[in-house]
C-alpha cells in the first residue's frame, strides 16, 4: 500500500475508514462473526467504574479499584487500498453503553446478532440503535440445536419495523458473515435513497 509521505497539512490521500458495529448479548457469537470475515485484533480499554457498575461488579477486596478493563475485539477488512472497513464487537451489557457512544459516532450501521433462545439479550442493542437512529439489521445466529423460527415471528417478538432486514446466519461461516454485512450496507443504501441526507455537503 502506497500512501505516499505525509506532509504537514496532514495530506494523506482520501483514506476512508468505515465503522460497522456488531452488537448483541454475551456469547451470541460477535467475536466468531468478526473472526469469520477478518483478522481479529484485541483491544482493551480501561474505563472509570461508574456507580452503576460498582453495584454490579463485586469490588470486595479491591475497594481502591476505580477503573475496569473492558476487552473487545475488532476486525479490519481492506476493501481497497484506500477503503478500510472496521468491525467493532461491542460489549453487550448495558453498563458498557459509554463505550458504544464512542463506537457509534460516525458508524455506518450495526448488525445486531441474536440467539433465538435468548432473544431478550438483544433488546438493549436494538433499543440503543433505534433511539439514536443508527441503521441496523438483525442477524439470527443459528446455533446447533436451537429452535428455528420464521423471521417474521422474530420480527413480531422483537417489535421491529416491517422494512428492517432480519436474516438467518451462521457466525462461523465467512459467506454468512459477509451476507450479514452486505445486507446492512444494502439496507443503508435503501434508507439513504428514501431520505436524502440534508445539511451536510
Amino acid at each position, binding site marked *: 500500500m502506497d500512501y505516499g509521505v505525509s506532509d504537514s497539512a496532514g495530506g494523506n490521500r482520501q483514506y476512508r475508514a468505515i465503522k460497522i458495529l456488531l452488537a448483541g448479548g454475551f456469547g451470541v457469537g460477535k467475536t466468531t462473526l468478526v473472526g469469520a470475515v477478518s483478522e481479529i485484533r484485541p483491544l482493551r480499554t480501561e474505563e472509570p467504574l461508574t456507580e452503576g457498575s460498582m453495584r454490579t461488579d463485586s469490588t470486595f477486596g479491591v475497594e481502591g479499584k476505580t477503573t475496569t478493563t473492558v476487552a473487545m475485539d475488532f476486525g479490519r477488512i481492506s476493501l481497497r487500498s484506500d477503503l478500510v472497513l472496521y468491525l467493532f464487537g461491542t460489549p453487550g451489557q448495558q453498563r458498557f453503553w459509554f463505550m458504544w457512544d464512542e463506537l457509534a459516532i*460516525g458508524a455506518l450501521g450495526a448488525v445486531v446478532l441474536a440467539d433465538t433462545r435468548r432473544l431478550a439479550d438483544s433488546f438493549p442493542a436494538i433499543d440503543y440503535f433505534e433511539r439514536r437512529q*443508527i441503521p441496523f439489521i438483525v442477524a439470527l445466529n443459528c446455533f446447533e440445536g436451537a429452535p428455528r423460527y420464521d423471521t417474521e415471528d422474530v420480527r413480531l417478538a422483537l417489535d421491529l419495523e416491517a422494512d428492517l432486514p432480519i436474516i438467518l446466519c451462521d457466525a462461523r461461516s465467512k459467506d454468512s458473515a459477509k451476507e450479514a454485512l452486505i445486507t446492512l450496507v444494502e439496507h443503508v*443504501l435503501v434508507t439513504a435513497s428514501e431520505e436524502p441526507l440534508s445539511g451536510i455537503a
Partner: protein
Amino acid sequence: MPSNDERWLDAEAGPVVRPYALTQGRTRHTGESFDLVASVMATRTFADPAALAPEHISVLHLARVPTTVADIASDVDLPLGVVRIILADLRELGLVVISTPVVMAERIDKHTLREVLNGLRGL
C-alpha cells in the same frame, strides 16, 4: 482463604492502575478529540528518542506507516485511554498528524456505499 482483613492488591488489581503511570496519571488527553478509526501518521519531524518515553517511541514507530488509533492500541497492547494520551502528546510535539477519516456516517455517500458493497461481495 485469607481473612477478610487482609486485602491484598494482587495481579488482578495491579495492572488496572499501572498503565496510567505512563501518562503521569493523566486520564484525559490534550487538544482536539479524535475517533477510534482516525488515521495517525508520523511526521518527518526529528524526534530525540532520549526525550521520549519508550511507549511514546513504540507508538511513534507504529505510526511510520499510516495506521489508526485502534490498530495502534491493539499493537502496543495498552488500554485505549492511555494510547490516546500518548498520541495527543506526540501530536503536541508535532511528531504525528491525526486526521479524522474522510468518511463518517453522515457523509457516507452512495458512491462509497456501493464501493463497500462491491468490496464485500468480492471477499
